[in-house]
């Protein structure tokens, strides 16, 4: 029987999470304070959390429930996107609990279980709980084992348990499979939610909407018209105190493995039969399977480390001078690779993926660059300033779409054609409505809707693509230094120049 109050035509009613609670590991981390806690408040503020929602924090701190509630309160006041409303806070704070304990101490998990059961009784969460592991991946095995041993992962009847982990999903294929084995020992595949905070659901849905809701792009979305695709994620900041996490991981594992390859898959995939999770995944998987890496890896990839320099008029230190980074570190802070998608649609079209820290500005985009018109009926001087047509999905900042094409320069001086851009900006047309990625992600976890989270197959496939490149790089010693505030090392320019192309300035 379906809910008689939910008419499928009734698009005003949002989907509200059913009775449930969230158990947060790593409450003192940056991510928990800046993203997770504020997002939970924002969801409550939008009326999307159930009335008796429970939030249980777990950490090695001498806190009681009130201390933890105060931490959440401060984080919400500072970072929440929606206005602070006392009545919403009261509603949320009634369900906040804290368990003090060491992550390796079985007694702490017995206490956690007692608190969770208390929340079930006092708040009516009905035994539905999500474990959010906002902790280093190295600690997952011990936490998952203890959750299992203490009986916290056991469920009865219609109860559910889910686990949320953040990227990185391993550091190579073997470790990703090991991670999956650990999680799978306690949770079913559809109970494991892999979150990549770079990849908001809004972004994914926007790309799918532009590609599959329109008629004018699909006919040219193939190797007949597309010359190459450039996917860029650039940050203007350095590693910002995350040396412990970043050293030994590097740009390729941090960003290319999931974020850029997911963007590639969304850009290149065939139209799914529907937007049901497994249909979209199937198409993404087909693209990931079709990807090949160049045989000559050194010629078609590039890596670099940011050097000391000036960024936007401010002096900054180099990667090797950052606190906590050994001076002989070979970790790359810039990575660029070329791959091809070996299917009929994309044969011969190179996909260039690049990411780096301390680059010119903060930007993420997918640029589809078209071939030049086969014949231009103008004098060559008239079109001297005309470059290739391009369609760009701008992902951040200013989420939107840009189209670049040639247009006549106004005036009587003659027929001059130059590039113009036409912008559609979500910041214009949909301001305020784009909920921050974390809100959507957490809500999907609580609703049990995994459509856009990568599953273990996609993670495996991405590592299969990246592993040979990482292996080749491992023998290459220290990456090339590049000036902070620019667009990466010389070898990146050389790599694309070998193909007779150049990077777009994003």
């Amino acid at each position, binding site marked *: 029987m379906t809910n*008689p*109050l939910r008419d499928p035509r009734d*698009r*005003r009613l949002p989907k509200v999470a059913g009775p449930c609670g969230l158990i947060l590991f790593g409450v003192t981390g940056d991510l928990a304070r800046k993203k997770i806690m504020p997002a939970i408040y924002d969801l409550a503020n939008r*009326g999307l959390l159930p009335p008796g929602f429970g939030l249980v924090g777990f950490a090695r701190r001498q806190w009681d429930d009130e201390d933890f509630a105060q931490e959440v309160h401060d984080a919400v006041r500072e970072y929440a996107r929606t206005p602070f409303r006392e009545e919403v806070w009261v509603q949320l704070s009634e369900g906040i609990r804290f368990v003090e304990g060491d992550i390796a101490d079985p007694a702490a998990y017995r206490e956690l279980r007692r608190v969770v059961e208390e929340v079930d009784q006092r708040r*009516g969460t009905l035994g539905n709980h999500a474990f959010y592991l906002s902790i280093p991946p190295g600690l997952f095995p011990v936490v998952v084992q203890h959750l299992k041993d203490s009986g916290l992962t056991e469920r009865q009847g219609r109860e559910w348990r889910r686990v949320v982990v953040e990227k990185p999903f391993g550091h190579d294929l073997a470790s990703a499979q090991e991670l999956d084995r650990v999680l799978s020992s306690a949770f079913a595949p559809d109970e494991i939610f892999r979150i990549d905070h770079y990849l908001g659901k809004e972004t994914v849905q926007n790309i799918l909407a532009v590609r599959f809701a329109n008629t004018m792009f699909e006919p040219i979305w193939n190797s007949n018209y597309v010359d190459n695709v450039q996917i860029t994620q650039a940050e203007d900041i350095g590693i910002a105190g995350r040396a412990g996490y970043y050293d030994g991981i590097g740009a390729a594992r941090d960003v290319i493995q999931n974020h850029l390859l997911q963007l590639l898959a969304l850009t290149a995939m065939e139209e799914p039969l529907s937007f049901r999770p497994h249909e979209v995944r199937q198409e993404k998987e087909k693209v990931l399977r079709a990807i090949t890496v160049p045989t000559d890896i050194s010629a078609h990839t590039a890596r670099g480390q940011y050097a000391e320099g000036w960024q936007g008029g401010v002096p900054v230190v180099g990667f090797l001078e950052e606190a906590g980074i050994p001076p002989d570190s070979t970790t790359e802070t810039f990575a660029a690779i070329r791959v091809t998608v070996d299917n009929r649609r994309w044969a011969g079209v190179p996909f260039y993926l690049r990411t780096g820290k301390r680059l010119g500005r903060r930007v993420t985009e997918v640029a589809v660059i078209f071939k030049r018109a086969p014949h231009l009926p103008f004098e060559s001087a008239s079109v001297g300033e005309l470059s290739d047509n391009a369609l760009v999905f701008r992902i951040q900042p200013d989420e939107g779409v840009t189209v670049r094409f040639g247009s006549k320069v106004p005036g009587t001086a003659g027929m001059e054609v130059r590039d113009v851009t036409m912008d559609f900006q979500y910041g214009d047309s949909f301001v305020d409505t784009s909920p921050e990625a974390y809100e959507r992600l957490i809500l999907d976890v609580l609703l049990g809707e995994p459509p856009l989270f990568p599953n273990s197959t996609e993670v495996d496939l991405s590592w299969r693509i990246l592993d040979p490149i990482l292996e080749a790089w491992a023998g290459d010693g220290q990456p090339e230094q590049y000036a902070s505030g620019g667009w990466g090392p010389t070898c990146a320019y050389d790599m694309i120049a070998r193909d007779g192309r150049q990077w777009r300035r994003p």
Partner: protein
Amino acid sequence: MIRLEDTSGGEIARAIAEERHRMGSPATGMVLTMLILSDEEYASDATEAAVLSARQHPMRILTLIPRPGRGPDQIDAQVMVGGDDGPGEVAIVRLRGDRSGHANSVVIPLLLPDTPVVSWWPTDPPPVPADDPIGRHCQRRITDLATAADPRAALRERRAGYVPGDSDLAWTRLTSWRSALASLLDDETTQVRAVSVDAEADNPSAILLAAWLRWALRIPVELTPVIGPGITQVQLDTAQGMITLARPDGAVATLSRPGVPDSTIALPRRGLPDLLSEELRRLDPDGVYGDVLMSLGETPGQAS
């Protein structure tokens, strides 16, 4: 702001375009045209709400104020583009003397090409909004029962004049209540036998809420007049016991369920900008509103 005296629709359109050029952004990303038909009393609140809502839905806002009475037969306008309040374009147009009956001819040159048009009567809508010369341009026609002197009579009129595409802010005000109630029944074992709603007497939203519950659940719904503010309580009589959602103060509701300790839900009464933003999120007909409005006639005496 540009003031135009004794002007016309075409001149207002030129003024908007000039103002855009002066701001340095001749291209627009407007998603719709909003026509507000109002008297002086409601015009400024309605315009302000639309300007705030334009942050979510960038739009051209035309507020049309008929001033029949005496005075010169002329059209005066104030034009504002962009600014601190939002990205929208606003023209407040006063139609004086014999021009007051010709709002439609002013509007035609000002409609943005090939984008949806929405009309909003903050008060005193025509009997059949879809047949109104202005309403005919619009796929969405918004009225507001809360400003009616006699809400029950107004409700009968809305029902008699209903055409798909009509909607009413009294219905929009219910969304948070409806969402909270619907999520209570997501647990599919809950069987509701009867419902009672307590609300301010003649509150049009409460009448619509009771009608919605009666229409969706096909069970008796009792509507009891109390002091308010607005809707204060909804009680579901279920096989498992009584579920009560009580909001005595217009802000925080307490949920009482059998076997579960009480919890609170924020159910604040929302302002016009919020309501309008929700209204503009979808511009296709709201079939559920239509069905609920029509159902008011099926049980004799319910709407009267």
